[in-house]
């Protein structure tokens, strides 16, 4: 029997707070969080820092304050690009969000037929590099364009082409956000409006729009950022119309003027960072809007509205299919527009600029490695940030680092990578020019969205799993492997597919850091178009699209087929 031998202290006045002794799990998890933090500092923070500092330096590296910015704004052609970028981005954003809203409304609020098909078609642009719509637009509206007459004599080369290409490319991004916003609206508000005999129009303006407003605002910022930082579309179809994104490329790749590139990069960082901050604030409010007792809205058939929406959505879907189709036909035509006999001549990439088929296989390897390592690092990282007990300051900092890439345009990140990794004084210099740097850069570029997906999935599982495991003296990694990971498998696959498709189609970050033996398919498209090999560029774009589409199809089969069987436990 235990005998009472404890000596209890007298009440101590204001002593230092107790600190819990750290267990083995605590040490490992904290160590891993710190390691992740260091990794993100190396692959995100320091490259951005390198870019920022470069913009304040002279060619010899001495600090010159704002001299580079003065030089930039002194050149009217360059300063003009800012104005160009802003108005083209605004216009594209307005058109894209409007179209996406109508389309999303059709998908979520009406009973029009074929909604599943419309959903799939709308996702097509995400699977293609932004160069594809631009190339298709040249075939449609260029001087030899199939339907050139539709422009009434205006030229596709310039703002018209940029806006059309960007709207196509950003459409699915806006659609996803707005569909989500519309889908979570509360049916009870509509019932109340109906009971109060509000007209459909009044209900639309007083219930539908306010309910979706955060989604709309969020979509506006996302699209604006995507457009202002994209350079695939303006590069191909911008003609003499210069924008910031092409300026940065021109300064860095064309004239090897890295400091000026850094200046433009910094200017490009501002709208993206602003959009990021506003979006974060919006999302916080959006959460408050959702009450736990909300009843999902179920649309009722209405012949007039359903038919009208079907017509509009069909038109949009048709436009998407046409743009994809044109690139396809151009790629298999022997000699557009004079010899339309189908042939695979344009797929003989080895005789073209851009690195040939090797670029494609490089892209496959790069996207595969990005998906593999990216998913592992990002999911495990999100787990650690979410589940490490206490350690709040460091976890908060790592969380911040994980979200930072969302505010950094790909071009800016890529440029930062040159400055940071191509510095001979950097011990990590050896990865410059390798496949590794492309993979690391792509993981960083797409880190935030994947991280958020992982965090959302982790938040949905019971908070107490870790406590129960600890009380049963089971080490955390065992619970991670046996429970957390299997339960989050759909999210993990989602992340892997997102990383693969984006790594496959991206141009912006990697265009600055590929090397002769690591050329990539999306960059090959760019280079082929540059050399005037437009049809082969379209062909490569189709190959990239097909790869991304197949990946997506495999993902869907996996989640619906295999997972359904392997995850029996989800069923009752």
């Amino acid at each position, binding site marked *: 029997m235990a005998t009472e031998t404890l000596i209890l202290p007298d009440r101590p006045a204001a002593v230092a707070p107790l600190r819990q002794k750290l267990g083995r799990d605590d040490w490992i998890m904290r160590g891993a969080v710190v390691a992740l933090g260091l990794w993100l500092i190396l692959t995100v923070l320091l490259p951005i820092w390198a870019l920022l500092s470069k913009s304040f330096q002279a060619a010899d590296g001495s600090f010159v304050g704002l001299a580079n910015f003065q030089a930039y704004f002194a050149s009217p*052609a360059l300063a003009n690009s800012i104005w160009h970028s802003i108005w083209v981005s605004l216009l594209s954003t307005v058109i894209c969000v409007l179209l996406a809203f109508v389309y999303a409304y059709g998908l979520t609020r009406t009973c029009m037929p074929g909604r599943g098909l419309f959903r799939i078609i709308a996702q097509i642009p995400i699977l293609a590099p932004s160069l594809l719509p631009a190339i298709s637009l*040249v075939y449609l509206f*260029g*001087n*030899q364009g199939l339907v050139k007459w539709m422009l009434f004599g205006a030229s596709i*080369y310039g703002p018209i082409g940029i806006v059309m290409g960007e709207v196509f490319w950003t459409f699915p991004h806006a659609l996803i956000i707005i569909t989500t916003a519309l889908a979570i609206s509360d049916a009870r508000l509509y019932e109340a409006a109906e009971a109060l005999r509000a007209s459909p129009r009044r209900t639309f303006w007083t219930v539908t729009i306010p309910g979706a407003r955060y989604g709309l605002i969020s979509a506006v910022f996302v699209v604006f950022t995507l457009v202002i930082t994209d*350079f695939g579309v*303006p*590069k191909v179809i*911008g*003609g*003499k119309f*210069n*924008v910031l994104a*092409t*300026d940065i*490329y*021109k300064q860095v*790749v*064309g*004239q*090897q003027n*890295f400091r000026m590139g850094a200046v433009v990069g910094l200017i490009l960082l501002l709208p993206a960072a602003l959009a990021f901050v506003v979006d974060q604030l919006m999302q916080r409010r959006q959460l408050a809007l959702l009450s736990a007792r909300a009843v999902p809205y179920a649309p009722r058939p209405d012949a007039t509205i359903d038919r009208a929406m079907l017509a509009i959505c069909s038109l949009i879907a048709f436009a998407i299919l046409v743009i994809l189709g044109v690139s396809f036909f151009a790629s298999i035509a*022997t*000699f*557009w*527009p*004079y*010899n339309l006999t189908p042939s695979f001549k344009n797929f003989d990439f*080895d*005789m*073209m*600029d*851009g690195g040939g088929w090797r670029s494609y296989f490089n892209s496959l*390897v790069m996207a595969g*490695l990005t998906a593999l390592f990216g998913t592992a690092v990002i999911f495990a990282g999100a787990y650690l940030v979410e589940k490490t007990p206490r350690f709040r300051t460091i976890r908060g900092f790592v969380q911040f680092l994980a979200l930072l890439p969302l505010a950094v345009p790909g071009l800016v990140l890529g440029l930062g990578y040159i400055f940071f990794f191509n510095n*001979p004084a950097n011990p990590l210099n*050896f*990865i410059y*020019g*390798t*496949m*590794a740097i492309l*993979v690391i850069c792509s993981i960083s570029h797409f880190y935030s969205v994947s991280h958020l997906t992982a965090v959302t999935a982790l938040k949905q599982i019971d908070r107490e799993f870790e406590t129960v495991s600890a009380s049963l003296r089971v080490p955390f990694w065992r619970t991670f492997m046996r429970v957390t990971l299997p339960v989050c498998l759909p999210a993990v696959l989602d992340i892997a597919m997102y990383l693969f498709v984006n790594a496959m189609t991206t141009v912006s970050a990697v265009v600055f850091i590929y090397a*002769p*033996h*690591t050329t990539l398919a999306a960059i090959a498209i760019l280079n082929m178009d*540059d*050399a*005037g*090999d*437009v049809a082969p560029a379209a062909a490569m774009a189709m190959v990239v699209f097909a790869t991304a589409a197949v990946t997506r199809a495999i993902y869907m089969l996996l989640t619906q087929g295999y997972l359904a069987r392997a995850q029996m436990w989800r069923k009752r």
Partner: protein
Amino acid sequence: MNLCTTSGLRRALLSIAAAMFGLSTAARAADLTVYTALEADQIKPYKAAFEKANPGINILWVRDSTGIITAKLLAEKANPKADVVMGLAATSLMLLQKEGMLMPYAPAGLDKVDAKMRDPAASPQWVGMDVWASAFCVNTVEAGKKNLPEPASWADLTKPVYQGQIAMPNPASSGTGFLMVSAWLQMFGWDGGWKYMDELHKNIAAYTHSGSKPCRQAAAGEYTIGLSFEYRANKTKKGGAPISIVLPKEGLGWDMEAIGIMKTTKESEAAKKLSDWAVTAEANKLYAENFAIVALPGIASSMEFIQGDIDKMLIKNDFAWAAENRDKILAEWSKRYDGKSEPKN
């Protein structure tokens, strides 16, 4: 996990690491990084022939337009990545020479090279390979539809009928563009040359990034006339494009493609072998498939669609002057016309 899968896994991890860091598990061959502005469809046979003759040496091409390759080489001056520069405009190589970036080397067989086509020093820093010259590609279908006469001279291009019909390479990025501008300034004089370009500018629809693109755009009918060079014109026509090839009668702008070894190379043995190979008859026969004039006299060319004696039509070209004034010319050009160029220069 049993041993077998462990070692399999390890092997897989090793090969991934190798792929990522560019390590090679095979016996190490000499990798020669060669910066070039040669056309993508030219470099394959050159590489194949050289590597066959010199097993164990592997060429890694870094290919881009003349202007970009030149800018890249200058930007990397402190820490050069290239071992050899091959198939770059002689004007650009002379610039590198001026910067002291090239290694003097007399390749075996140098004596057979046309004296006009090399750095005159006994150990030349660059040796020419071939000559490329400007040419127009005119889309006959489009010209017919629009009722446009076929231009025969540089002067014809400034006629108002051609307004918005012409594409030309941007001289800042394209060697083909630069040799045209340089030729006009030499033929018409400094002021006359800019006056000519002011007139021409009114008719230009687009300044392209690459020297090939205007001809390809003309071939596709995007623009009726593309100012380009004879290799691309010949090749494009061979590919079935409805174009006619015009050599302007005032004279052709031209430049040499040349080879030089970077002073900083760590692979100087391999680099010298490439330089040696570049002046062989075998190599010159390959050049001759693409160009009318090559460094070794007497090697027959076979450009089936080029009519006329290119050799006689070349202007008297002062390379030293062009190299000397390259920056000045490009700055002036950008100031006057940059608004119409494609995003990448």
